[in-house]
């Protein structure tokens, strides 16, 4: 009896030492501290990201600002509706579109706006224009914490994305979870495995020699474990994007980040 109550005390003590309960969305992420991909870069690459002149991602941000402010054919420009800019908006994507009930990522939101309000055709994934616009809009949330909502209609998408994250796939039979949760911080050949957060995207990847979306990054991860990747912009990838963002909720947005 005495021993039992001692154990009870010990448990209380452990509970008292744990920091305030983390937000619900971090439950799956086993990290004491969320670390951006930035923390896994060399100092030289970090310096390149921090220098807003030489960071090549800003080439797309500049171009995006031009596209945002100019009208195409007879369509109104983005700026004619969004007169005060879109600061903070990208930090809450993917989000449910209240009109259609669909889960949209930032690229999907841009294309929905184009079709619905500007009556322009949707832009192709990874087209220069879509990357430029998404980089420009994401950059307006630079430094703000990721804060996606996974309640209501988003909950099933979150669960679907989480399933994808934990499912082993490909010839290497690896899940996202095995690298980015269980082995983050360890070496994978010449590289350090990051925690797998998307807070820097659209990002300039040195391997790509260009700026690309989070969708492209996920596509590459699937290719990396020799799984058949899904098409860019597929619903499952957008659901996964939601899971990743929720998992990283609170991390500062860095787009356009530099990543290896």
């Amino acid at each position: 009896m005495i021993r039992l109550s001692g154990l009870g005390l010990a448990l209380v003590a452990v509970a008292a030492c744990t920091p305030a309960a983390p937000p619900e969305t971090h439950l799956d992420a086993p990290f004491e501290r969320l670390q951006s991909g930035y923390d896994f870069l060399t100092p030289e690459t970090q310096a390149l990201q921090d220098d807003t002149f030489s960071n090549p991602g800003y080439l797309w941000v500049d171009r995006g600002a031009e596209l945002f402010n100019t009208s195409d054919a007879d369509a109104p420009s983005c700026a004619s509706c969004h007169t005060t800019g879109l600061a903070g908006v990208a930090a809450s994507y993917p989000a449910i579109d209240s009109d259609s009930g669909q889960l949209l990522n930032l690229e999907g939101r841009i294309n929905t706006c184009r079709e619905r309000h500007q009556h322009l055709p949707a832009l192709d994934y990874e087209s220069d224009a879509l990357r430029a616009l998404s980089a420009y809009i994401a950059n307006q949330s630079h430094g703000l914490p990721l804060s996606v909502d996974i309640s209501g209609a988003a909950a099933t998408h979150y669960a679907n994305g989480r399933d994808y994250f934990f499912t082993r796939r490909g010839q290497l039979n690896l899940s996202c979870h095995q690298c980015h949760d269980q082995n983050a911080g360890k070496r994978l050949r010449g590289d350090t495995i990051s925690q797998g957060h998307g807070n820097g995207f659209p990002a300039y990847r040195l391997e790509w020699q260009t700026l690309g979306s989070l969708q492209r990054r996920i596509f590459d991860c699937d290719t990396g474990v020799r799984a058949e990747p899904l098409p860019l912009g597929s619903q499952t990838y957008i659901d996964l994007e939601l899971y990743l963002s929720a998992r990283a909720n609170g991390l500062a947005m860095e787009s356009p980040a530099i990543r290896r």
Partner: protein
Amino acid sequence: MASIRLSVPATAKRGDVIELKALIQHPMESGYRRGSRGEAIPRNIITRFECRYDGETVFAADFHPGIAADPFLTFHTRATRSGPVLFRWTDQHGESWQETAMLTVT
């Protein structure tokens, strides 16, 4: 259309050494790579960069396939007189992009 970013001080004292920075968006495709179906990706590179300060060439560079995408150059020159600083990139097909910044020397 290529995006260009320039960094040129607006003003400088005569005789000062100033830093000029130029970044251009370009794939700098080396011609040695192959696509996902094995087809050769043709070479597409900038071959020449020139910087003219008030009409005089103060810096020039020949680019080869080893230069990475979105080439970024930093170099220095001495501020001698007020005038336009022109940056021009020319690719292998002869197409060129240029942008000018004004430098005022006091």
